[in-house]
């Protein structure tokens, strides 16, 4: 399995990078065709995606709803397509029905293909640092405000910090 790299390029962003062993056309399809999206974008185990509506054109809307199969809890979100450059770039807004972070996010997907493999970079930009941090520590109690941007790097390579 390829490694998922998680970074914080600025204090309002989270970026994920991951390599896929497939041409980017297919990776792009998997992000823009509802029948494909609902097969993988499920989150933690036990959730399914009963609603997956996507009007993939600039200004078009998308609407996703997940449902916890056992207790019936639902979680919905949606947004608007801002930029579509097939098969390399997709920019969409994101807003959850029940706001667990303040405001809206702007998600930029960039696909770079080399030798039949695709490097995916998904950058999520939030309206504030507080919103970004809320996403990062989702699942934890709130109240953490200190800077921990470089923490992940520190843990990944302990020797770096002393240089």
């Amino acid at each position: 399995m390829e490694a998922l790299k998680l970074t914080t390029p600025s204090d309002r962003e989270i970026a994920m990078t991951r390599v896929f062993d497939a041409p980017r056309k297919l990776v792009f399809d998997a992000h823009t065709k509802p029948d494909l999206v609902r097969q993988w974008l499920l989150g933690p185990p036990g959730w399914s995606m009963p609603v997956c509506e996507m009007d993939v054109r600039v200004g078009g809307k998308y609407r996703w709803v997940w449902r916890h199969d056992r207790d019936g809890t639902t979680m919905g979100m949606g947004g608007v397509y801002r930029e579509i450059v097939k098969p390399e770039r997709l920019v969409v807004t994101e807003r959850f029905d029940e706001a667990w972070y303040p405001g809206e996010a702007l998600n930029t997907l960039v696909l770079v293909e080399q030798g039949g493999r695709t490097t995916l970079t998904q950058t999520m930009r939030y309206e504030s640092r507080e919103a970004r941090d809320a996403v990062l520590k989702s699942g934890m109690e709130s109240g953490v405000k200190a800077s921990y941007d470089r923490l992940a790097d520190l843990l990944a390579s302990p020797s770096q910090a002393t240089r």
Partner: protein
Amino acid sequence: MNTASLDATFAALADPTRRAILARLASGQASVTELAEPFAMSQPAISKHLKVLERAGLVSRGRDAQRRPRRLEAKRLGEATRWLERYRRLWEGNYRRLDALLEQLKTKETKWKP
């Protein structure tokens, strides 16, 4: 781990010198003198940083009464970074499913366009 102590942990981690001290301790315990060496800093200054790290539960003192070596409390550091792991795991799960889906799509494409 409660919120107050988590705050203390992240506050302790917010300082570059303290992160460097933790990085040093990740490779083994060390005395205050040894820890002060790589930094252009007095021992009292290092001791002050160590006190913050100790209060945050990230560093503890070893048994040797003479050297009083400090050591990393890796478990605590792990707790503090669990949120990041959770987020990573969520997406690793999604992307593993995407891997499988892409394999199917590749097979289909070859069948359709031999």
